[in-house]
C-alpha cells in the first residue's frame, strides 16, 4: 500500500472512498463477516492456524466440534484435515505448508460455518473465529472475504463457497454499475489511477465465474498494481489482468455490493498526453471520473460531461466527470492531456543531426576518383621527411654550428613545404 499512501493520494483516496459510500454504501462488516477473516499473529509458530468456534457468541465455546480444513498446497495438491475443538472452543492445525491456501469449515447445531480462504503466511500463524446462529447465519459466509487482497501470490485461491441457493455462471448477468469510479492523479512520470468498480448481478441467482474469478483487464502499460483497502478479494495474474475471486450476489441482496478497488500507475514517459484504454468485458454504466483541480489538466472521453466539483478533506477541489456508458466488450478510453511534459525538441534535433552526419559519412565514403595527393608525391614527401630527421639528428650530434647540415636542413624544409603546397 506504500505507493498509494503518500500525501496527495491519501487525501484523494479518502475522498474517493467517501464518494463511494455516498452512493450505494457498503454496509459495515458484521460480526460474521469479521469472524471469518484470518488474524495474522506473530505469537503462533509458522504454519499454525487456530479456529475458535462459538455457539451464538465467542464466550460460549463449542467444545468437541469437528473442524475440517481444506489445504491446497503450493504444488496444487489439496488435502483435508480434521481437528476437534478443545475446552476453549479452539481447534489447532499445525505444520501447514507456507504458501498453501487454507480454508476451514464446521457445523454447529446443524448450521454450517466456513472461514475465508487465505494463504498460510511465511511468518507467524493465523487465528480464525466461527460463530453460529449469528445474524443471517450460514448464508452470510458466502460473501465473507479476506481482509486484504491477496494479489501477487499468484496462487489459485479457492473461491468462497456459496452454500445456499442456486448460482449462475452466465457472464451476461454481470455489469459494472454506475457507482463505478475512477480517480486520476498526477505523479512524476506517471498517472496514478485508482478504480472502484462496483459489480452488479442483474439475475436473481448468485453469480460465480467459471474460470476461478471475474477477469478485469488492466490498461496496457499499467504497472505497480495494488489492491486498495476495502476491496473484495483480488488477485493479479501476469501483470495484465485482475481476478476478482468472489461470488456476486443478486443486486437486490441486502449485502454490500462486490467492489474491485485497486490502483495502478500509468507511465506518461514525460509526454503531455496519455490515453488510458481499458477493455471492459462486462461493460460499464456511466462511470464517474475524478481528477484533482488543475489549470492545465484536460480530460477527453466519449460522452464526457462535467458534474459539480467537490472539495475533499484537505480542501483540494476535485473535478468530477461522468462518461458515456461503455458496452460489453468495449474499451473505456480516457485521454488526459495538459500533463507537465519533458520537451523532446532537443532529442529530435540531435537525432536528425546525427542521422545527417551518418548519411554524410556514407555518401562521402567513396574515395575521390582523382586522388588529390598522388602516391608519388606522398612517398617523395616521406623520403624528404626521413632525410630531414636524419639531418637533424646529425646536426644535434655535431652541434648547431655545422653550416652544411643547417643549409641542407633548410633545403629539405623548403622541399617539404613545396610538396605540401602541391598536394
Amino acid at each position: 500500500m506504500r505507493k498509494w499512501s503518500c500525501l496527495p493520494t491519501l487525501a484523494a483516496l479518502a475522498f474517493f472512498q467517501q464518494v463511494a459510500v455516498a452512493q450505494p454504501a457498503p454496509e459495515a462488516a458484521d460480526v460474521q463477516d469479521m469472524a471469518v477473516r484470518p488474524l495474522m499473529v506473530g505469537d503462533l509458530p509458522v504454519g499454525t492456524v487456530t479456529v475458535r468456534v462459538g455457539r451464538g457468541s465467542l464466550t460460549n465455546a463449542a467444545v468437541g466440534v469437528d473442524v475440517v480444513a481444506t489445504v491446497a498446497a503450493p504444488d496444487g495438491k489439496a488435502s483435508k484435515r480434521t481437528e476437534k475443538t478443545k475446552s476453549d472452543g479452539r481447534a489447532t492445525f499445525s505444520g501447514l505448508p507456507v504458501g498453501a491456501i487454507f480454508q476451514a469449515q464446521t457445523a454447529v447445531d446443524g448450521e454450517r460455518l466456513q472461514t475465508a480462504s487465505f494463504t498460510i503466511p511465511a511468518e507467524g500463524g493465523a487465528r480464525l473465529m466461527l460463530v453460529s446462529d449469528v445474524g443471517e447465519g450460514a448464508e452470510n459466509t458466502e460473501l465473507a472475504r479476506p481482509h486484504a487482497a491477496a494479489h501477487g501470490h499468484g496462487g489459485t485461491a479457492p473461491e468462497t463457497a456459496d452454500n445456499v441457493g442456486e448460482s449462475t455462471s452466465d457472464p451476461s448477468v454481470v455489469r459494472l454499475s454506475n457507482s463505478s469510479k475512477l480517480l486520476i492523479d498526477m505523479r512524476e512520470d506517471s498517472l496514478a489511477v485508482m478504480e472502484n468498480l462496483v459489480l452488479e448481478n442483474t439475475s436473481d441467482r448468485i453469480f460465480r465465474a467459471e474460470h476461478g474469478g471475474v477477469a478485469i483487464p488492466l490498461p496496457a502499460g499499467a504497472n505497480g498494481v495494488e489492491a486498495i483497502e476495502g476491496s473484495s478479494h483480488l488477485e493479479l495474474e501476469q501483470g495484465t489482468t485482475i481476478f476478482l475471486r468472489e461470488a456476486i450476489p443478486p443486486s437486490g441482496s441486502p449485502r454490500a455490493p462486490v467492489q474491485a478497488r485497486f490502483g495502478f500507475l500509468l507511465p506518461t514517459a514525460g509526454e503531455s498526453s496519455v490515453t488510458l484504454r481499458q477493455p471492459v468485458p462486462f461493460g460499464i454504466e456511466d462511470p464517474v471520473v475524478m481528477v484533482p483541480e488543475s489549470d492545465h489538466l484536460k480530460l477527453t472521453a466519449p460522452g464526457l460531461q462535467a458534474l459539480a466539483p467537490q472539495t475533499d478533506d484537505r480542501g483540494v477541489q476535485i473535478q468530477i466527470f461522468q462518461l458515456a456508458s461503455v458496452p460489453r466488450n468495449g474499451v473505456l478510453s480516457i485521454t488526459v492531456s495538459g500533463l507537465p511534459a519533458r520537451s523532446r525538441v532537443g532529442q529530435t534535433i540531435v537525432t536528425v543531426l546525427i542521422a545527417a552526419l551518418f548519411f554524410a559519412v556514407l555518401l562521402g565514403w567513396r574515395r575521390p576518383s582523382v586522388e588529390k595527393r598522388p602516391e608519388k608525391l606522398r612517398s617523395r614527401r616521406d623520403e624528404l621527411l626521413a632525410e630531414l630527421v636524419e639531418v637533424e639528428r646529425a646536426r644535434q650530434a655535431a652541434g648547431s654550428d655545422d653550416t652544411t647540415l643547417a643549409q641542407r636542413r633548410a633545403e629539405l624544409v623548403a622541399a617539404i613545404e613545396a610538396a605540401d603546397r602541391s598536394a
Partner: protein
Amino acid sequence: MADFGALCVLIALVLATYAGAASLLGARRDNARLLESGRAAVYALAAVLGLASVAMVQAFVSGDYSIKYVQHYSDAQASLAYKISAYWGGLDGSMLFWAALLALFAAIAVYTNRHRQREILPYAIAVIAVVVDFFLYLIIFEKNPFDTFLVEIPAAGQGLNPLLQNPYMVTHPPALYGGFVGLTIPYAFALAALISGQLDGAWLAAIRRWALASWFLLTLGLVLGMIWAYEVLGWGGFWAWDPVENAGLLPWLTATAMLHSMKVQERRGLLRRWTFVLVILTFFLTIFGTFMTRSGIVQSVHAFGKDTRLAWIFTIFMSLVLLVSFGFFFARLSALRASRPLDSWLSREAATVATNWLFVLAALVLMFATMFPTLTEAVGRERISVGPPFFNTWMVPIGIALLVLTGLCSVLTWRRTAPPEFRRRLIAPGAAGIVTAGVCVAAGLGASKGALLCLGLSGFIVTAVIQEIARGVRSRRTGQGPLAALGALVFRVRRPYAGYLVHLGMTLMFVGFAGQAFQREESVVLKVGQTRAFGKFGVRFDGFSQTEDRQKQMVTAELTVLLDGKPAGQLQPARWVYHKRPDEPATQVAILRGLVEDLYITMGKHDLNEGTAALKLVSNPLVDWMWLGFLLMAAATIGVLLPTGREARAIPSVRFSWSGVTITLFGATVALVFGAVVAHLPWGAPLAILGVGGLILGLSALALYRVLDPLLRQEEIPSAERRALIEEELRARLQIAAETAE
C-alpha cells in the same frame, strides 16, 4: 542549471558524432581540413562535457532539488566534498562523469598524438567517438542526470548513503573510473591500427603511457576500495569476492597481462596477436564491469539496482564491440604474425607468455563464478550463488602460480637462459624462499599451506629482485660507488628497474593476502571498566561518549588497548545514526595498526544505561604490508610515467600562444578552486565554480571556433605556418626515435 546541463549533453552528442564522422571522412578522402576539424571537435567535446560537469556540481553545491538526481543523492547538511562526490555517487551522474572523463582523456590523447600518428589517429578518434556516443545516448535517452521533477519539487534532498560519506568514497570511484575510461584509449588506437592496417609497433608507442597510467588508476581504485571496505564496512576484511569488486578486478587482470604483452612486443617483436586480443578483452571487460554494476544482472550491495532495459542496451553494445573488434582482428590475422619465433622456453618472454595465460585463466574463472548465479537463473534453475570458498579454491593456486612466474621472470633473461646460468641464478632466491618458509613454520605460521607457500615465494621474489638489481649495479659500477651506480641505474634505465619494484610491491601485497589465513576474531560484551585479553593485547572499556552534529548522533566507545599491561593506544569504535536514515546505523571502525598485526574493533549493540557494549575484536596479521606494497608499486609506476631526460629534451618548448595562455589560466583557476575549498570560504565554492565554468565556457567557444575554422577557411596556409607544422612533425619524429632507442 538543469536546462543548461541538458543542452551541453545534447551538444556533446552532436560533437562526438561529428568528430568521428569528420575524422573518418578526412582519412578516407585525405582531406586535411576535415581531419583538423575532427580533432578540434574532440577538444570541443571535452570542453562542453566539462561545462555539463560544472553544471552538475553547481546544482549539487547550490542544492537545486528541482533536479531529481541532485535531490536523490544530496542534502543541505552534506559537506562540500560529499556534495561534489555525489556527482558520481549514483547511476545517472556516474555515466555523465564517465563520458566527461573519456572526452577529457580523448582530448589529451589527440593533442599529444596529433603529429605522431597521422594514419591511425582519425580512426582512433572515430572509435572513441562511438564509445562516447554510447554513453551520451544512455544519458540523453535513458538516464539523464539533469531530469527535473515535473509535478512537485521536494523541499529537501534525500542525502547520500551514509556508507558513501567517507573520504575513500570521494577518491575511490574517480580512480576506478579513471582506470576504466583510460583503457578506452589503448583500445581505440589498437582498433584504429587494425582498421587502417598500420600494424607496426608505432601504435604501441602512442598508448604505452596511457595503458600504464590507466592500469595504475585501476589499481589505485581497487586498493582504495579495499581500504574503504576494511575501514568502513566493519566486517573485518577487505575483499569479499563481491560481484562489483570482481567487476573492477576483471579488467585489471587482463590489463596487467596486456602490459606484459606490450613489453614483450616492443622488446622482442613477439606476442603481437596476444597484445591485440588483450587490449580488446580489457576494454570489453571495462564495459562488462560497468554493465554488471549498472544493469542489476548481478546481486550486490554495491550495485546501482536492476534495470532490464539498460541491461539489454549494454548487451547490444558489448556484442558490437566484440563483433567489430574481433572481425578486424581476424581480417588482419595473417599480418599479425610475430616477427621472429620464440628462441627458447627458458626465457623471460616465455615466462611472460605463461603469465598471460594465467591472467586470462584467472579472468575467465572470475567471470564464470561471478556470473554463475545469473547463468543458473537463465537456464531456468534456481539462482545459485558462489561464495568466497569457491573463489579461493581457484584463485589462490592461480595467485601462487603467478608468484612463481614473477620470481622466475626476475631470474630468467631475454631470448634464452642457459640452464647452468639459470641454476646459478636460482640458488640465492631459492635458498631465501626456503629459509623464509622455515622461519614462518618456526613462528607457528605453518598451519595454512597456501599462506606458507605464499610467504616462502615472497622471500624468493624479493631475493631475486635484489639479486637482479645488484647485478645491474655491478655492471654500471665503473669507477663510482655502489649508491651512485644504483642511482644511475634507477634513473637512467628506469623502465626495467621500475618493473622490478612493481613486482616487489605486488609481492608485499601478497604477503598481506597471506596474512588473512591467520585472521582471528572474537565477540565480547564488556561493561564499563572491564578488560578483556585478546591475543597479545588487552582491551579495556573505559566508557561511552555521546556527541551529535547536524547530520547524525554518535555513540563512541572509549577503549584503551594494553600491551604487557601498559597502555599501547586509545581506540574509539562508534555507531553513527544519521537523522535521515535512522534504520541504517553506520559502524565506525577503530584500528590499532602494526606491521605484524592490526587490532581491529567494531561496536555492535550497546546499552548506555547499563554501560555495556558488544565489541567485535579482530586480529588482522600482516594487512598493512598490502598498503605498503601498493605505495611501492605506485612510486615505481609514477617513476615510469615521468618522461625520461631524452624525452623531456625532445618535447617542444611551450610557445606563446592563446592556447598556452588558456592552459595556464586554467591551471591557475584549478589552483584557486582548491585554495577556496580548502579555506572553506563561504563564497569560495560559488566563486570557484563561476571561475572554472567561465573558463571552460571560453575554452568551449575557442574549440567550437576551431571546429568550424578549417571548414570555412578559404585562404592559402601561410608559408610560416606550413613550416611550423613541418617543424612540429620533425620534433614528433625525433621523439619517437628517442623512445624507440630507449
